[in-house]
């Protein structure tokens, strides 16, 4: 499997993990380590000054893991820039998952504000990985604005509906000069493999692992699926026939006398 390179940094794993919705921080850490992931998201919240015990950060800080702070909760570009500066200060990284989704019902990314924020954050020295609509025109604009990747959605966050945007993701991959990470909606290892077979550079998975019956085993399943899908892409998939007419894979020369 080829290494993934984002903003000059190499990654051995093409599976990114979100840290939401796990039953405990211990379980989350075990799942992250089992997944082999080297890119893990982290959100921010206002500190509860009376609760010193609550510390998820040390569960995700490992030498092989790049922290990817997100801007979840912001409603526009201005708030995103503020959140980014807070994240850089708190976590000591300029990597950022830019997500601007003002509508809580579908959590769909705001295209106008996402593009605006990307332009500003790149100028401020951030490595910007924007969560975005599966819109090929937008993805080119984000690339021109200096985004390190684009992260189009497969389906709305947390829905586990898979690649509802499959055809558009194919166009995005075909056009992109930067890595394409399918973020949101991937609900099963088969769907992760499907994204990788299409040529996605990586997938970001959270809910499907966090709420699984056994998150650690599900993390391993996703790891295997992402590797299989990528291997298949690099090996070159055979074409799909346009009809149902068979094409023999064994010689039909009769060896039995009729």
């Amino acid at each position: 499997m080829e290494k993934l390179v984002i903003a000059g940094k190499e990654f051995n794993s093409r599976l990114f993990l979100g840290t939401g919705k796990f039953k405990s921080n211990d379980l989350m850490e075990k799942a992250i380590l089992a997944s082999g992931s080297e890119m893990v998201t982290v959100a921010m919240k206002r500190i509860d000054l009376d609760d010193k015990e609550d510390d998820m950060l040390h569960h995700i800080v490992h030498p092989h893991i790049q922290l990817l702070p997100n801007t979840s909760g912001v409603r526009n570009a201005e708030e995103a820039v503020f959140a980014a500066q807070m994240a850089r200060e708190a976590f000591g990284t300029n990597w950022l998952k830019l997500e601007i989704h003002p509508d809580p019902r579908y959590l769909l990314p705001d295209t106008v504000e996402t593009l605006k924020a990307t332009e500003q954050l790149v100028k401020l020295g951030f490595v910007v990985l924007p969560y975005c609509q599966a819109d090929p025109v937008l993805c080119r604009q984000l690339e021109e604005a200096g985004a390190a990747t684009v992260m189009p959605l497969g389906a709305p966050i947390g829905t586990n509906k898979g690649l509802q945007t499959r055809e558009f993701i194919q166009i995005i991959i075909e056009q992109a000069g930067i890595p394409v990470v399918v973020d949101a909606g991937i609900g099963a290892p088969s769907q992760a493999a499907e994204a990788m077979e299409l040529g996605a550079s990586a997938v970001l998975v959270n809910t499907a692992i966090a709420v699984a019956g056994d998150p650690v085993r599900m993390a391993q399943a996703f790891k295997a699926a992402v590797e299989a899908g990528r291997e298949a892409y690099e090996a070159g998939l055979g074409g799909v026939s346009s009809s149902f007419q068979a094409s023999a894979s064994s010689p039909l020369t009769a060896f039995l006398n009729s």
Partner: protein
Amino acid sequence: MIIKVNNKEMELSSQASLQQLAETLQMPDKGVAVAVNNQMIPRTKWSETILQENDQVVVIKAACGG
């Protein structure tokens, strides 16, 4: 003077710096960021940042999220 920290009112001596507030609150020395009136203040500037009456201080830390 009265300031607000994460929307909670707090009494501080006048001319208190952000560094003094951090010490009063026993803020962790890693993994937090502080803003005063929506302006992020890097840790290196805490000592020279003097708080004013009615300042809105926000302190954030890591949380689980995708």
